[in-house]
């Protein structure tokens, strides 16, 4: 079974670290020497008990301040499945981390403090989940022990949340009453929520589908590396190495190389020089092609029958990840697939207000995105690229923006559509 990678999002005091700590603890992922290290630690819960939150707070600054600065990756397994927890911090200023974590996630667990209900942070986290296309959302209404496991309160919060989900177009939402501190509905079903008849969190995680139907979608591979052995017996051997991002490549398939448009067939799908029956996503393979076609790193090999969109001008949602704000017209380097190319941000027309989940049009004097802000832009590239809209394919529809001078990763873009070419001179 495929791994499930899930992100956990919540604001500072809603018990996120406690929830993760409990999942790890109850599935046996916390080993004796790690528990001993927790017991040795001077940092404790208020009542003096061992602080499970320390399992995720790894850096010295974090432990001293009792906050999480960076994403922590945690691993655990049950008999049914392996799991990856992508633990993103909850502070307002760390949208960057949540966006980063969300880009890898198959599912999001969004925590709500039952005493507070839906707050700005809930809307913000849900908006990021929607923009980043996380396929499934579990909303854990936590600290129910502090409100006497009150069904009415849970139902009100659920109603509020479903309103947000509808506005954002979120699908696959499941609402779950929990107490992370006391373990209700985390690993096993709680007797204190008889009015909830769904599965506990762990069961939801064990049964969530990953990349549903990806092997059947149009085949896509970005060429990473050309294998050309300089050895006897291999003079004519040439294979294109890359990871299958969607669909399945099979011997005999008609394929198109992009952006050149050359067409050929798949001669064989190989791994380590041995032929495979087929190459489904997400395998890393080497494709040998029937004709001598010119292709190198940065190019794409795609199913001829279902090609992606080819365009030099894109409409995208952009999250700005750098402390220096983005201004309209800025030039940048872009990574898409395995290609690095130059680009400029042409039209920065709208900003997402994550707290109200509204789009705000930007006036002429204010066409900029600050650190941790998201907006709608058009991007002009140095040459056309093949892409699928991000909503259809999260890997062929994604780009990162890089500051060429510093090398920093400054932006993350979800491509929504091609844009009409503008008439400014190309770069």
């Amino acid at each position, binding site marked *: 079974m495929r791994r499930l990678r899930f992100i956990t999002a919540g604001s500072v005091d809603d018990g996120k670290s406690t929830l993760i700590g409990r999942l790890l603890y109850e599935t046996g992922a916390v080993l004796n020497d790690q528990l001993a290290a927790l017991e040795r630690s001077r940092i404790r819960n208020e009542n003096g008990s061992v602080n499970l939150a320390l399992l995720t707070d790894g850096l010295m600054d974090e432990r001293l301040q009792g906050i999480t600065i960076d994403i922590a990756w945690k691993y655990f397994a049950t008999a049914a499945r392996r799991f990856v927890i992508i633990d993103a911090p909850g502070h307002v200023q760390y949208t960057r*981390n949540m966006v980063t974590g969300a880009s890898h996630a198959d599912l999001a667990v969004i925590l709500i403090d039952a005493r507070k209900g839906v707050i700005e942070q809930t809307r913000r986290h849900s908006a990021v989940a929607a923009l980043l296309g996380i396929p499934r959302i579990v909303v854990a209404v936590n600290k129910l022990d502090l409100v006497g496991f009150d069904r009415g309160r849970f139902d009100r919060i659920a109603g509020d949340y479903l309103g947000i989900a509808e506005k954002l177009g979120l699908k696959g939402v499941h609402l779950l009453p929990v107490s992370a501190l006391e373990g209700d509905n985390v690993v096993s079903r709680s007797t204190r929520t008889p009015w909830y008849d769904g599965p506990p969190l762990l069961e939801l995680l064990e049964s969530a589908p990953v990349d549903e139907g990806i092997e059947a979608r149009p085949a896509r591979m970005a060429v990473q590396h050309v294998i050309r052995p300089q050895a006897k017996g291999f003079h004519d051997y040439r294979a294109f190495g890359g990871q299958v991002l969607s669909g399945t490549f099979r011997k005999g398939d008609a394929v198109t190389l992009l952006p050149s448009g050359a067409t050929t067939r798949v001669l064989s799908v190989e791994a380590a020089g041995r032929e495979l029956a087929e190459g489904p996503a*997400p395998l890393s393979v080497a494709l040998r092609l029937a004709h001598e076609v010119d292709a190198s790193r940065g190019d794409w090999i795609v199913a001829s029958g279902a090609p992606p969109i080819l365009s030099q001008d894109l409409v995208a949602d952009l999250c700005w990840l750098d402390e220096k704000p983005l201004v309209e017209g800025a030039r940048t380097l872009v990574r898409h697939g395995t290609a690095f190319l130059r680009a400029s941000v042409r039209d920065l027309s709208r900003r997402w207000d994550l707290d109200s989940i509204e789009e705000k049009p930007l006036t002429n004097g204010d066409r900029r995105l600050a650190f941790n802000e998201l907006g709608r832009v058009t991007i002009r590239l140095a040459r056309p690229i093949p892409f699928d809209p991000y909503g259809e394919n999260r890997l062929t529809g*994604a780009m990162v923006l890089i500051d060429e001078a510093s090398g920093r990763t400054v932006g993350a873009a979800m491509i929504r559509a091609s844009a009409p070419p503008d008439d400014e001179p190309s770069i």
Partner: protein
Amino acid sequence: MMDAIDELEAEAISILREVAGQYSRSALLFSGGKDSIALARLSEKAFRPGRFPYPLLHIDTGHNFPEAIEYRDRMAADLGEELLVRRVQDSIDAGKAVEETGKGASRNALQSITLLDAVAEFRFEALIGGARRDEEKARAKERVFSLRDEFGQWDPKRQRPELWNLYNGRLRPGEHVRVFPLSNWTELDVWEYLRREGVELPSLYFSHSRKVVRRGAALFPVSPFVHVDPGEEILESTVRFRTVGDMTCTAAVESRAATLDAVVEEIRRSRESERGSRLDDQRSEAAMEERKKQGYF
């Protein structure tokens, strides 16, 4: 049917090909330990029938297990790939590194100095290592492409966000990256992969009889590099190693697991973490983080 190991393998191959695609001068850190053995196997998957686009590099403390060194040389020859060895002893002789003394003395931390000298000597842009995020708390926050400044230092606040599979390996002069293709693997995943691939491993990883001294809960292999106090009792024990590092800081565990199947089963049931047998991590609560900041792998 795709399983989690297939998925991890595909991700690691893709990361190795990114190194090949983004850099012209890189090296694979190869010690003869299980994680580096997995990386060598993954490199075959990524690049055969071609050559590896990088040499193997070992930073030899001079205190390594002879079994690991013998394995290292044989494996490099079998792969037909270039093996570079740089020695901590040479750094000490050149006055660049100062040896620790006394009980518990180790050359483990000195490896960073020799490693950085090798980076300068070969102008390496990327070093591929077998570190995993499940090993330790500071590692849990590590990037796949981890940026180091010209002094080899890791600054947790300067690391780049990594989104999707779009690794940004751009460097400025003097910088290099450490690349960790096994970031998302667990210890058990590595063992299951080695078993699936039928890879031969150093004998140290399997149960054998060995002279050890007991220090706290740890069993230390008796060797010329481990100082044994007159009062300490030397025991003959049936042990194996879960990690293979420098002899001065790698403890054995009592085990009767003599085959890969038995090792996988033992790890599945284990209630101790792998780094629990690494004394270098137990020096302080944030030992790994401090060493990483200094350029440790």
